[in-house]
Each structure stands twice: as structure tokens, then as C-alpha cells.
């Protein structure tokens, strides 16, 4: 019985780590800017599409494309993995630039602005790549399946979980062990004070936005082989991310990681019994938890209660 559930638990774990990764970028921005970035999912999608363009390869330069296609998939995949988030980063900078007008105002305007941007980016993806689904090719070493305990396991899921875990650890190091992280945390706590101490809050905001954007894009690259690449994958990712944030509580690193795992597990386990309905379970979990704990599991008082 438990063995039968094991694959679903592994799926849930992978999903949970990825949700946590998306949510962490989302939360860094929410903490410092006090704005919800609904376009975060579009950056996730952009990461996946850029990775596809690099790895397949479908670059807009025909000559380079041919030469690049002769390179082994493993190298192309690794390049896509590292370069796609960097290519998406300028998009995040543009969004940050546009959002500047909403800082200090009712968070509703940030929400509206980024909703509009999400619509723009989604339609831009449709215009560039069409509405069809794509699959990101994965090198043979990390794809395929293996048999363990008489069950077939997807090798990539374990790799995806490992990638996500590594990225989360990296975020932890950056936020908890660097000067930049200290400034970000201080800025989220009291932006004016940080400015008074001579830190350029504009640069800090841009830095956090780039970090958040790259995390979203990286999650998109990791998720692409599992979900497939399609225009509305951005919305599919941003909604779980905010569920994780609200559930875990705003401003809590471990809250986001735990809530991500919890959401992933609940989706994975409910998938074992009713695969059609599994995504519904995370909303029900959210409603249940928030009804009894208004600030989520580990939340402090935040702008969400404004």
C-alpha cells in the first residue's frame, strides 16, 4: 500500500520543491517592493521557452543554429539551463522599471499592472511561438526510467528535485549569508531606514527583481520537461506560487519551503486517488489553513493585511 503511494510522494516532493522555488522569488519581490508580481509566472514561462530555443536548437540565427545543432544534446541542455535564466533577467528589469510608479501606492495598482504585463507576455509568447505544446529535450543521462521495488520511476523527476533543492539552498545562502541578503531583509523590514543608512534602494530593488526573475526562469527550465511548454504555463505556475506564499506566511523562508512541500505532497497524494482533481486540493488546503491561521503557517504581520 505504502509502496504504491511512493511514486506519488516522489512526484509531490518534486512538485513541492519547484513550487517553493517559484514562490521564493515571488516572496523576495513581495517583501522588498510590497507588491505582488502577477507577471512572475510569465517569467517562468519565458525561461522554459528560451531554454527550448537554445536546446533544440531553434535560435533566430540560421547559420549559428546549424553549427550549434552538431553539439551534443548534453552540452546544449547545460547551456540552456544556465543561459536561459540570464536571458530572461532583462525582462525582469523592464517589469521592475514599469512597476516603479506603483511603489508606495495601494498594492492594488501593482497587482493590476502586473496582471496587464502577464497578459502582454502571454500573448507575446503566443505571437512568437504559437499555441502548440513543445517538449524540452533532456539528455539521456538524466531522462528515461528505472525499475525499483517493481515500480518504474522517472529519472528526470529525481534530477528536477535535486536541481530545485540546490537552487533553494543557493537562495538560502544568498539571503542568509551575504551582505546583499542582509540588505534585502533589512529593506523588507524598513525601507526608509535602509535608505537612510546610505544603501541605494533603487539598485537593491533591481537586484532583487533580477534574482527573483532568474529563479522563476530557472524553475521554468526545470519544470519544462515535466509540464511541457505552452503559453498558459505562466498562469499555471504563478497561482500555486501565491498559494504557497499565503499558506507559508509572507516573509518566511522556511514557511515558503515547507508550504511548497506541503502543497506538492497534497497535490501528489490526492493525485493517487483522484488524478483529475489533484490540483483542486491545494486550493482547499489553502482555504482550510487560512480560515484558521489568518497569516499562514509562519507569517508575520504584512502588507497583505493592510
Amino acid at each position, binding site marked *: 500500500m505504502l509502496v504504491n503511494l511512493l511514486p506519488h510522494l516522489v512526484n509531490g516532493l518534486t512538485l513541492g520543491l519547484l513550487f517553493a522555488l517559484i514562490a521564493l522569488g515571488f516572496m523576495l519581490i513581495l517583501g522588498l517592493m510590497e507588491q*505582488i508580481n502577477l507577471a512572475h509566472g510569465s517569467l517562468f514561462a519565458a525561461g522554459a521557452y528560451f531554454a527550448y530555443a537554445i536546446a533544440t536548437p531553434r535560435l533566430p540565427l540560421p547559420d549559428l543554429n546549424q553549427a550549434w545543432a552538431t553539439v551534443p544534446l548534453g552540452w546544449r541542455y547545460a547551456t540552456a539551463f544556465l543561459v536561459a535564466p540570464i536571458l530572461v533577467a532583462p525582462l525582469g528589469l523592464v517589469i521592475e522599471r*514599469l512597476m516603479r*510608479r*506603483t511603489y*508606495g*501606492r*495601494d*498594492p*492594488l*495598482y501593482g*497587482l*493590476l*499592472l502586473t*496582471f*496587464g*504585463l502577464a*497578459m*502582454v507576455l*502571454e*500573448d*507575446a509568447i*503566443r*505571437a512568437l511561438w504559437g499555441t502548440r505544446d513543445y517538449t524540452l529535450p533532456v539528455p539521456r543521462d538524466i531522462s528515461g526510467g528505472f525499475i525499483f521495488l517493481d515500480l518504474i520511476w522517472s529519472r528526470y523527476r529525481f534530477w528536477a528535485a535535486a536541481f530545485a533543492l540546490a537552487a533553494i539552498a543557493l537562495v538560502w545562502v544568498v539571503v542568509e549569508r551575504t551582505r546583499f541578503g542582509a540588505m534585502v531583509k533589512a529593506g523588507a523590514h524598513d525601507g526608509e531606514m535602509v535608505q537612510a543608512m546610505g544603501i541605494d534602494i533603487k539598485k537593491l530593488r533591481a537586484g532583487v527583481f533580477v534574482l527573483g526573475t532568474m529563479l522563476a526562469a530557472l524553475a521554468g527550465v526545470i519544470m519544462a520537461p515535466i509540464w511541457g511548454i505552452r503559453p498558459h504555463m505562466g*498562469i499555471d505556475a504563478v*497561482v500555486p506560487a*501565491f*498559494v504557497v506564499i*499565503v499558506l507559508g506566511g509572507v516573509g518566511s523562508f522556511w514557511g515558503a519551503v515547507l508550504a511548497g512541500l506541503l502543497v506538492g505532497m497534497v497535490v501528489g497524494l490526492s493525485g493517487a486517488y483522484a488524478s*483529475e*482533481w489533484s*490540483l*483542486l486540493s491545494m*486550493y*482547499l488546503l*489553502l*482555504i482550510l489553513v*487560512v*480560515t484558521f491561521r489568518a497569516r499562514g503557517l509562519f507569517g508575520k504581520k504584512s*502588507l*497583505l*493585511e*493592510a
Partner: protein
Amino acid sequence: MTPAARHQAPTFTPTMLLTWAVLATLPLWIERVGLYQYLAVEVLIWATYALAFNLVLGHAGLPSFGHGAFFGIGAYAFGLAQFNLAASLWLCLAAALLASAVAGALVALFISHRRGIYFALMTIAFGQVFWFIAVKAHGITGGEDGLLRIVRLPAGFGIGAVSLEDNVSLYYGVLAVFVLVSLGLWRLVHSPFGRVVKAIQQNEERARFVGYDVWKAKFAIIVLSAALSGLAGGLFAMAQRSAFPDVMSLHYSGYVVMMTLIGGGLVSFWGPVVGAIVFLLARDLIGAVTTSWMLWFGMLFVALVMFRPDGLAGMFAGLRRPAPPPAPQPVPQPGED
């Protein structure tokens, strides 16, 4: 407060009568300007929906990003009542109104004590729940294929019945609903209850300290807004002759927010109507040139949020008044025409 504002707001205003008059003549000239009759029906339905939606966004200051759920539930209820209860227009519209009111009450139970971004996020979650159910409950809603073969029912009046089969007669049927809803909402916004809602929008805590039951007022306004959105949804099912889950998606829930904001729902009672017209016209006009119309319209919307969050109505008021308010605007107040 100016002395004029202290007066009881008139039941009919020149703007209201002008809006109705223009809309009443619309079928006579809409084809002359190169558009089509069905667009007029669509505009009126979305205008009704946006007016109902603005009850929460503009008047109560509660940003709902899940209103599509109520619109969609109204549409499904209309179809299901027609198939399973009786093919009567009044019964089906009542079913649409009631079903979405019940759904609205269920949601309001969980979120009436919230506001701001938390409110927005929770409405997204509830909206997704209803959308998800509509997509997956294939046996009831038809899933992604939709609920098909919904009939445009005639409006029966005891002695006889008026067919609403063609687009022009349906338009006048929808116009009757629009006139009733807009008049009712106008009265409501200017009633004592409407003032409590406005007080909540301006400062919830102060309203509570003055002694108003804020929770009850918010609950009532959410349920009412949901019910009227459902009514519009019922009309939409009739116009489309079908009901689909996509109107319940986050995208469509956002579209009604966009309409309301573009028209100036934050500062004007009639803003959502203007917004619905602009949105659907832009969809058809930009959509005639390019398939990715939202790419361009979304950019316009982003620019609007950045520079004129009070929308077209705000711009119009700015033209009439020489000195526009400074950039970080004070809490906007709708309902002032």
C-alpha cells in the same frame, strides 16, 4: 462635503438618461458604422457584469480577481435550469441569480473579514476552485466542450410572449435588464446602505468604530455583486446559446477588472459601462488586424494603470476641471456620476 452632495441624489440623472437613450438607439445604427448586432448584445451583457463587479471593486474597495466564477455559474445555472427544470425565461434567470448568489455567499463567508491584497489572492483561489470544478465536472457542465444547445427563451408575460430569438430583440431584452440593474445599483449606491459601503471603502476601521457592522455590509455587497454577475452570466449563456468554462478562468476574471478600471470604475458609476464598450471594441478592432490583440491592449492597460488609474472617466473629468489631482491620488470615490 459640498452642500450639493448633502442632497438626496436624484433617481434619474442626465447621464443616466443619455446612456439609456444612446443604448436604445444602438441597433438602428450599429451596422452603419461597420459593426454587427451581436456585438451590441455582448457589450450590454458585459456592461451589466462590469457594473455588478464594480460594486465590490469601486464602491466597496474590494479587489476581486475571481468574479468570473459567478458569471460562469450564472451561465451554467441558466442552461441547467432550462434542461432540467422548465424552459421558462424567468425561471432560468432566477436560477442564474440564485445559484451565483449562493456561490457568492459561500465565498463571502470566508473572505468578508479580509481586504486589500489578501482579499484579491483569496478571490483568485476561490475563482480557480470554481473554474476547476467547471472544467472537470464533465457530467454536469460538459467540461471543456461546454454546455451546448441552450435556447434563447421567449419572454412570457401571461397574455403573450415576446420572442428573443434574433439578435435585435434579444438586445432589447438585455437592455431592459441593464436599465433595471443600473437603476437599482444607482439607487443602492446612494442609499444609506450605499453610504456605509462607501465608508468601508474609505476606512474600514473607522466605519467599524462608528458602529457599523462592517462584516455584514461586506457580506451583503459581495453576495449582491455575485448574484447580479450571475444574472449577466445567464444572459450570456442565452446570447451564446451555450456556456463554457473559460469565462470562469483567471484571464476572464481579470478582463472584467480591466474593463472596470479602463472606464474609470474607481471614480465613476458609469465607468464600467464605458470600459466594457472600449474593451469589446478594442478586441474586435485590434483583433481584426492581429491575432494577438491582447499584446497591444495589455500595453495600453499597463500604461493606463501607470499614468491614469482613474481611467477614461478620470481623464474626462480632468478635461472638464482645469487642475487635475496630483499623482499619488487620494482614495477614489465612485458613485459621484
